């Protein structure tokens, strides 16, 4: 029975290969970061690979925070060249980068993304204010000048104009950039409208505004937005929180609620009248330019008129484009490797 020895020899050989295959020079761009930017970055990467002679970049969806952490690990081919983010880089992250020798970073803003509160077409469209949403979803709300655990069970208890249905909202988990943005743009804004909360210190205020209720009326439905859409279709009484591109793709199944008088349409998000929208970014490690082929060309493709312009292919995928002036300035920032300033 010699065959297990043959295999053993093969594995020994493989082991040697494994140990000696050090990180060799890389000829392919590596990108990490936000799952919100992922659908846009992948289209650009694919077009970049198709129309230029460079290899198609490899993109991992790690979340904004996870991506920046990997990005800031250091300079060298084993570290990523770009990171996508659905929020701006934080001061602490810039410091972490600097500690590891990543000092030259170029920031590119690529567009906007709206966050919608949608429900099944079988139910009526909600007309909400951010104050209503805060009252429906916060863990603690002010009632008669006192903070009490959220007593509301029906939308009509919050605002008599709202439908007489149970509050049930499906949303992203705390690890998601969409959740961060929702808290910042909706919950905090809603909480601001209560003088008694506004007078509290920043820390106490955040404790109230950033805590979602945990009694089963706000359901953390995971990162998969398609799943939320399916659940909304099955349960017309529920609302779901997700990115605009999913509303755009599923216009036959769900419709977005009006928030502070503005419906989530492409135009309303682009001109800023829809209040719940955030900027999307990506960051380039300037030290890798010239080492990894094609980095500047990738940025050029991403910021080109045919990609991120008003009529670019990214708008087909649900990206809300930047005004023309801004796009131009970011395009030249990519060409000149303008260093990030916070």
């Amino acid at each position, binding site marked *: *029975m*010699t065959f*297990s020895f043959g*295999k*053993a020899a*093969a*594995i020994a050989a*493989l082991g040697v290969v*494994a*140990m000696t*295959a*050090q*990180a*060799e020079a*890389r000829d*392919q761009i*590596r990108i990490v970061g936000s*799952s919100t930017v*992922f*659908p846009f*970055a*992948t*289209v650009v*990467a*694919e077009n970049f*690979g*198709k129309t230029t002679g460079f*290899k*198609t970049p*490899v*993109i*991992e*969806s790690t979340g904004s925070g996870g991506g920046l952490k990997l990005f800031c690990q250091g300079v060298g081919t*084993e570290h990523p060249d770009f990171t996508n983010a659905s929020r701006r880089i934080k001061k602490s992250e810039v410091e972490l980068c600097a500690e590891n020798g990543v000092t030259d970073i170029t920031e590119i803003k690529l567009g906007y993304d709206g966050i919608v509160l949608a429900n099944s*077409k079988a139910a009526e469209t909600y007309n909400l204010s951010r104050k209503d949403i805060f009252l429906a979803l916060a863990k603690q709300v002010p009632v008669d000048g006192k903070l009490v655990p959220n007593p509301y069970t029906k939308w009509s208890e919050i605002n008599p104009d709202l439908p007489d249905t149970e509050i049930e909202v499906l949303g992203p988990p705390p690890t998601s950039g969409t959740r961060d943005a929702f808290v910042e743009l909706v919950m905090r804004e809603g909480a601001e409208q209560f003088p008694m909360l506004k007078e509290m210190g920043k820390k106490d205020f955040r404790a109230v505004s950033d805590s979602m209720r945990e009694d089963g009326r706000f359901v953390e439905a995971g*990162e*998969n*937005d*398609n799943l939320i859409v399916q659940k909304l279709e099955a349960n017309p009484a529920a609302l779901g929180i997700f*990115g605009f*591109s*999913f509303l*755009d*793709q*599923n*216009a*036959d199944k769900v419709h977005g609620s009006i928030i502070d008088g503005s419906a989530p349409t492409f135009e309303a998000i682009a001109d800023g009248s829809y209040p719940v929208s955030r900027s999307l970014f990506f960051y380039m490690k300037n030290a890798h330019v010239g080492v990894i082929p094609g980095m500047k060309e990738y940025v050029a493709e991403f910021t080109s008129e045919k990609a991120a312009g008003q*009529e670019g*292919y990214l708008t*087909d*995928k*649900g990206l809300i484009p930047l005004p023309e002036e801004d796009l131009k300035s970011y395009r030249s920032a990519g060409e000149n490797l303008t260093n990030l300033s916070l």
Partner: protein
Amino acid sequence: MTDATSFPPGTGSGGRPTDPARRPLVVSPHLARRYARERRFRLLGLASVATAGLILLILLGSIVSKGYSAFWQYNVDLTIEFSAEELNPDGGPVDMETLRRANYLALVRDSLKREFPDAAGDRSERRKLYGLVSPNADIVLRSMVLEDPGLIGTTQTVTIKLSDDMDTFAKGYIDRNLPEGDRRVTDLEIGWFDHLNSEGRIHAAFNVDFFTQGDSREPEEAGIYGALIGSILTLMVTLLVSFPIGVMAAVYLEEFAPKNRLTDLIEVNINNLAAVPSIVFGLLGLAVFLNFFGLPRSAPLVGGLVLALMTLPTIIIASRSALKAVPPSIREAALGLGASPLQVVTHHVLPLAMPGILTGTIIGMAQALGETAPLLMIGMVAFIVDIPQSFTDPATVLPVQVYIWADSPERAFVEKTSAAIMVLLGFLVLMNAIAVLLRKRFERRW
């Protein structure tokens, strides 16, 4: 009951009054209960099998009914004018580099504009018109022209893929009776589609690209081939690493190792390792293979090594129980005939245990095939278009592809997801079939 008849009626043995006529009465209710209990037990068993079967049927039914349509693709025949002005604007001899860079999309767009001159005026209408066909249509034309530059200046009928929205509509997933605002395709697009369809220029064809291309963000271009190759490369590494190590470890522990506290401890730890959540192995892989050895991220080599670590305990445990099941008489007979302990193992025990070892290995490999969590940490959950060529190229695997497509906003990815699951299941069935074949070959009776 036979001896009861030898006593006269009314008197029982031991002085107990027994009535032979009553005795069956005493036993039979018991009997009936016992039979009923047995029938219930069998029914329960049958019900469990039926429930499991039903759930499997529902699962497969929902996957197949959602995914079967991904195996074909609707195409449209367009008359394309390979105009010399567009392809070779400078005139003169045809230069390959110019041809490669030419704007082939313009050819498709010109053709569509000729087809529907009404739409050419308004910008947004024009965008919709261009959106009828796949944005990757230019690749087909480019490769046609590069293959045969003689096409320049001629007019040809070319079959081009419909875009994902129109394909979904053609497959009947979008209801045209809904109000216009509630569906992805507008009345205008449906009008164009109906016009082309009435001329018989829209037809379905087997979606070859699904099996020959890598991932894409355009659903009509996306294929499973890259992930399939990634899975094969990864599993090859896993098998090559975990099978020999696992079998060697099992043979040593079972046949040669002294029975003491140390080997007991090792055994307990192997059993514990089999229950460790797979993500932990991913973290280990990140720390050891990527950060310490500096192996490339996203590579099947690293993925295979990580999955091998995960599969090892399964293989060792299965191999040990297979070795245990070989009767000691075989070993004793071989030793008695003068075989050395090594010969006993390699000539007799291992071949006899091989069917069980292979079963364990295939269970481990099937687990490894379906795993995504440990691969997340080592960068194999990624968008990768190029087909991996070697063990160190970036690659992804089938379950990751399923996950990525399930998470994509485009509606047409729903059917692709189910189709990818079918390919994954097919791969699994194939692996199991190979295992059964191997087992049949090695099977010996004693």
